[in-house]
């Protein structure tokens, strides 16, 4: 019913290499939905302060920015950001260089883009721009990883890309009654176990305090987070982590920080850093002092039980729990959401659709086997909605 205005006045054009700091923060964030915190302006600027500037792709309409993303090169060795390990069973030039779209080390990505009727067109232009950028600089193609599966389907459709299921993320809907509301849905055994974990935490003299960024000591936080990372095979060091936190302060991300801290007497024994954004609390960093021989379930108390009550009391409706330790999270009521990467090669060689579909179905079965009863409805899309384009 609404006839478009003159088409020539409304065409999109795209460009490369604008600096993030030269773009208007609020204009950028108008493209960022509640679910896309890790592509919000301040988060991306924080990464730049800590790790250096990156190129930015932008798509503009006559009235301003309509889509945008930052770029990076992914990881170069096995880990969370290593493309060959995501796609080992799909033929493709995966050992060559690929361009990565989205914030560095993001494990949740959405395309920052206008909503509505022209979203498809704006995403398509972003895809063209990414293709040109990749081709000009000798990349074999580009990927946007860790996208919610349904968003990946739409992006792939717009750019002629391929959807490859490669990860999953845990999240919890927060009822108004917080933890007790979540527990009420559990079987008795799970309830008893969680109550006993919380009781142990208290019996061992631990308590929880919530802190804003101004009350946090970055050096101590970095120390605890680094201890946790090295315990689980991570390589980042204390200085790296401190740089990340300092970048967040400079960029104003600390405005969104809510940290759950466990204390015994006056000693901080662990912390989980959350970011509040839109209607969700996003868990990002856990750190603990492992020099203390404490079996007090602080990880679960800080990352799970306490935040449910905190979220409910502060009007948040979702707890986003990231991609690690899924088994432990589903045992405590989390749902698992499928995450896909969208890939496109730029040499004209399409990615084999059949192989991608087979890969996706196999990955679906693995998750179904391992997490039966805990998968959210989006997994049904994997079967019902094979890749749309090739």
């Amino acid at each position, binding site marked *: *019913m609404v006839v478009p205005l003159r088409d020539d006045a409304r065409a999109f054009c795209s460009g490369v290499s604008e600096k993030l700091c030269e773009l208007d923060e609020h204009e950028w*964030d108008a493209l960022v*939905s509640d679910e896309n915190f890790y592509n919000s302006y301040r988060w991306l600027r924080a990464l730049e302060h800590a790790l250096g500037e990156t190129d930015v792709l932008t798509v503009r309409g006559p009235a301003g920015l309509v889509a945008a993303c930052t770029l990076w090169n992914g990881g170069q060795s096995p880990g969370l950001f290593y493309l060959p390990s995501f796609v080992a069973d799909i033929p493709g030039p995966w050992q060559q260089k690929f361009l990565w779209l989205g914030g560095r080390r993001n494990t949740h990505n959405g395309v920052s883009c*206008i909503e509505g009727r022209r979203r498809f067109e704006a995403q398509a232009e972003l895809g063209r721009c990414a293709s040109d950028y990749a081709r000009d600089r000798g990349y074999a193609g580009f990927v946007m990883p860790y996208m919610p599966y349904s968003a990946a389907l739409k992006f792939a459709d717009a750019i002629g890309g391929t959807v490859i299921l490669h990860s999953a993320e845990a999240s919890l809907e927060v009822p108004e009654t917080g933890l007790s509301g979540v527990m009420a849905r559990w079987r008795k055994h799970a309830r008893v176990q969680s109550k006993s974990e919380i009781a142990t935490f208290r019996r061992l003299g631990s308590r929880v305090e919530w802190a804003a960024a101004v009350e946090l000591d970055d050096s101590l936080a970095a120390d605890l987070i680094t201890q946790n990372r090295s315990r689980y095979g991570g390589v980042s060091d204390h200085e790296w982590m401190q740089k990340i936190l300092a970048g967040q302060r400079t960029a104003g991300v600390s405005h969104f920080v809510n940290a759950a801290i466990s204390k015994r007497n006056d000693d901080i024994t662990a912390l989980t850093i959350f970011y509040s954004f839109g209607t969700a609390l996003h868990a990002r960093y856990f750190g603990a002092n492992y020099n203390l021989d404490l079996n007090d379930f602080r990880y679960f108390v800080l990352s799970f039980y306490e935040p449910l009550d905190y979220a409910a009391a502060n009007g948040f409706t979702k707890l986003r729990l990231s991609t690690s330790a899924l088994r432990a999270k589903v045992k405590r009521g989390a749902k698992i959401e499928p995450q896909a990467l969208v890939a496109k090669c730029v040499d004209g060689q399409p990615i084999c659709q059949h192989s991608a579909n087979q890969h996706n179905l196999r990955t679906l079965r693995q998750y179904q086997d391992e997490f039966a009863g805990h998968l959210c409805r989006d997994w049904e899309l994997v079967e019902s909605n094979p890749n749309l384009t090739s």
Partner: protein
Amino acid sequence: MNTASSDQFNEYASIYEDMSQWPFRKYIEIPSVFQEIGDVDGLSILDFGCGTGMYARWLKQRGAGQVVGYDLTEGMLNYARRRAEKEDLDISFVSHLGPELIGQFDLVLGVYVLPYATTRPELQAMCADMVRLMRPGGRLLTLPIHPVYDPHPNYYEPYGFRLIAEDPENPYADGERVKLELCKNGEQGGVFAWYWSATSLERALEQAGLRSLKWRELSASAYPDANQAPKELHAYLQRPHSIIIEGVRG
């Protein structure tokens, strides 16, 4: 509720925010609206068709109690939510009018939203929605297209926009479409709006339950005598493209 008409706004969040600095809004519309609203201390206010939420933010900063912004366009709501979040303003921005909002508000503000009703039943429904949100005795302030806006397509060009009736021979035809082109910094796109006559507006508002309707012309309130206002504003002040309608829920 017409999502197609509000969908037009998805890519215009930043330019609408920017528009608050354009002289016709900054020196005429915005001060006129605030003067008409008066003291907001502790009032519960719903900004209907809130766009980027700038009125909602200002009202909150001026001491309003509960402030809710309502809009159908996700692009506008994203802007509004992100900005209020960064400015630590406790405003909820919603795309749905839940039962908990009905009859709650001392004031409903609807700036440039009635022109996006595309049919008479939609106009009626929008007015009914606005009035239903107000407590009995609560006030509505809304800004439609002025019933006698200047129909020369270029009249408002110095102010950053053009208002172009689809049928230039008949610019005041009730329910007709007008094109709003944005041209402050080159051609910046535009949206369609719908012209409603004074009679249609009054009838729709009264049928929705609004009483004591008053029409208030916009003025440059910093200048009690319009002739003292900067010359650039004169043409707008002579034929403003909008007007305030105020009323009370009976």
